[in-house]
């Protein structure tokens, strides 16, 4: 007795689909409904308010500020993160003794839990007793207050996020670099190309599929997973300057118990991410060009 072949894929997908439905689709559907209600903290009373939650969001400085912060956060962490990762990946692509150790060390931040990474950075940057603050005092004779002043707090959180993501990016870039045939570089050398020419005419174009994938992955991870570092290092402060949209959703929902407002914020977040996913599928293949 055997199932018809065409059922097998569905059968194999069923467990994943079940989990996604329970943990993602259903809550997303719920939050869409909840965004139209005002709900008491214990959920014992709720009132339909239509789009009032959304209207209030756009009138509240806090939410608009979080959108602005998220924009800066994403552009800087993804931009600098990827450039730095590519640079490190090229260094790690060399055949030097002990390269395995370097690769492991570079990858290791990714294996650290984001909350632990946040604690680590908060400790390093702590005023007076932190190592980074100490080194700044010795070398530059200044005492920057990393976690309590704007824009240093935002910079500190972005550094922690970039540091955390670098391992992931480097591994992908490294795989991409190793798949580029050596003969291209040899041919270029014969034609008299210098290393800058090779970087811009061979390496970067041939890495574009991976770069595009990493951009999309990094955008979603810096929007969604930046939470732990922010919570541990600054709690969104000073004065909400490190509150990203994701952190704002958390504050509204789990700090202030405004479930309606938190839901409407997450609906907006879902729409934005849906837009990026659409871009990925629409232009994903076309945007990548090979020379």
């Amino acid at each position, binding site marked *: 007795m055997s199932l018809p072949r065409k059922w097998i894929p569905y059968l194999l997908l069923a467990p994943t689909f079940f989990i996604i439905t329970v943990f993602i689709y259903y809550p997303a559907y719920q939050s869409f409904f909840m965004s139209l209600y*005002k*709900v*008491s*903290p*214990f*959920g*014992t*009373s709720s*009132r339909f308010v239509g789009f009032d939650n959304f209207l209030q969001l756009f009138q*509240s400085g806090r939410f608009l500020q979080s959108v602005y912060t998220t924009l800066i956060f994403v552009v800087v962490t993804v931009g600098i993160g990827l450039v730095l990762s590519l640079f490190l990946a090229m260094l790690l692509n060399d055949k030097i003794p002990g390269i395995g150790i370097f690769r492991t060390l570079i990858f290791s931040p990714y294996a650290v839990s984001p909350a632990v990474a946040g604690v680590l950075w*908060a400790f390093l940057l*702590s*005023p*007076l*007793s932190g190592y980074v603050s100490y080194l700044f*005092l010795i070398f530059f*004779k*200044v*005492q920057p*207050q990393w*976690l*309590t*002043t*704007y824009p240093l707090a935002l910079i500190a959180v972005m550094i922690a996020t970039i540091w955390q993501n670098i391992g992931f990016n480097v591994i992908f870039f490294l795989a991409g670099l190793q798949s580029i045939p050596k003969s291209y570089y040899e041919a270029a050398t014969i034609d008299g190309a210098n290393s800058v020419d090779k970087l811009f005419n061979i390496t970067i174009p041939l890495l574009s599929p991976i770069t595009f994938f990493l951009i999309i992955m990094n955008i979603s991870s810096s929007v969604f997973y930046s939470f732990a570092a922010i919570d541990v*290092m*600054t*709690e969104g*402060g*000073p*004065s*909400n300057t490190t509150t990203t949209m994701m952190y704002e959703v958390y*504050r509204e929902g*789990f*700090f*202030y*118990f*405004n479930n309606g407002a938190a839901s409407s914020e997450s609906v907006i977040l879902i729409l934005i991410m849906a837009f990026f996913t659409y871009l990925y599928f629409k232009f994903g293949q076309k945007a990548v060009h090979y020379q």
Partner: protein
Amino acid sequence: MSRKLLVIAVLVMVASMIFAAPITLYIWQGAGTTFTKTLQDLCNQFTALNPNVKVDVLYTGNYHDTLTKTISAVQGGNPPDLVMIYDVGTQVMMDSGVVIPIQDMIDKDPSFDINTIIPAARNYYSYNGKLYSMPFNSSNPVIYYNKNLFEKAGLNPNDPPITFDQFIADAQKLTVKDSSGNTVQYGFTFGTGEPIAWFFEQFLAVQNALYLNNNNGRTGRADKAVFDSPAGVRVLDFFNTMVQNGSAINAGAGWDNAESLFLSQRAAMLIDTTGDITMMLQGAGSNFKVGVMFLPHPSGVPYGGVIVGGASLWMINTHNTQREQAAWDLLKFLESADSQSQWSAATGYFPINRNSIIKLLYQGYYAQNPEFLVAVLQLLMSTPGPATSGALSGAMPDIRTAVSDAFSNVFSKAMTAEQALQQAQNQANKDLANYNSLY
């Protein structure tokens, strides 16, 4: 006939199981990991007296997380019997409709004397004369100071500052710079976010000033914030003067950073909760002597006092009279003079039972540990009234953020104290309207 007998037999069996079976009560606490053992030890003493009731104490994350988890647990139909909820969660719990007000149990139990609970703690957790939760780990903020650094700076460690001006002057004397002008030791440190917003509330009470209208929400639901007042400006200026003249360091969000600056002797004075006295004394160890002083007070302003902070134990309605009775017996045990003495000595939270304070005094405990007496005296000498009863509203968590932001805006010189407080008050009014629209 035999069927009827069978039914009766089964009923009797079930009933006897219900009434004799040992039960396990669950307590969720959010005061800190180290307190789980202390509380569990107390509960084990209760079990020794009541062998049928076992108690399981669980640390459920900080106060915020504990409230969040309680909400999920109630909605999921599996709540704990007793839960520790922090001061500003009080109104949310009162409005929740899922708790049994302690007053209901007290009214049914003539053996319990509510007047053993010190009045300040009783007032904080009461509304319209009805006590909602059992005060348990009550604290207020104090200033910890490093007596050795006081001596080094030529200050008398036995004569710490009393007024704002003296405090600011001493903080400057306690600030040490190296040859190139960088500060290596600050006079004062504090945590921002939740902590500084709490200190603000307390310093308003110190000046006997109100935080919310309707007598801090005690004579009706508060719908307007009133902290944008000369008293409020004085508090902001107090912190800001020291931040701007370089004698205070903003240690960042939360409690830990400020505590570590103080314990590593990088800051000579620290504002923090009395709940950590034991931790501070142990942390300082033999490195330096810790002193504890009252909150300073602006001269020329009538004295108010401090508000009961910390948390209380709430009884969740489990719709099971046997569990509820056991939970009530446990609460009475935890409120008893002996339990409160043990708890206070192990932590630094002050006893909320008057007999416990009296006993500790007779035993010479406060003579040997004057640090612990400061917290008790500071509270008991407070002027009774709405300002020192503390503000009551479900929007308090939001409002605390607005107040903490006001401090940040002043420290960064983006706003004057007046502007920052006005902005915070406008935000608070919106938050109050939003919360009140639910009820």
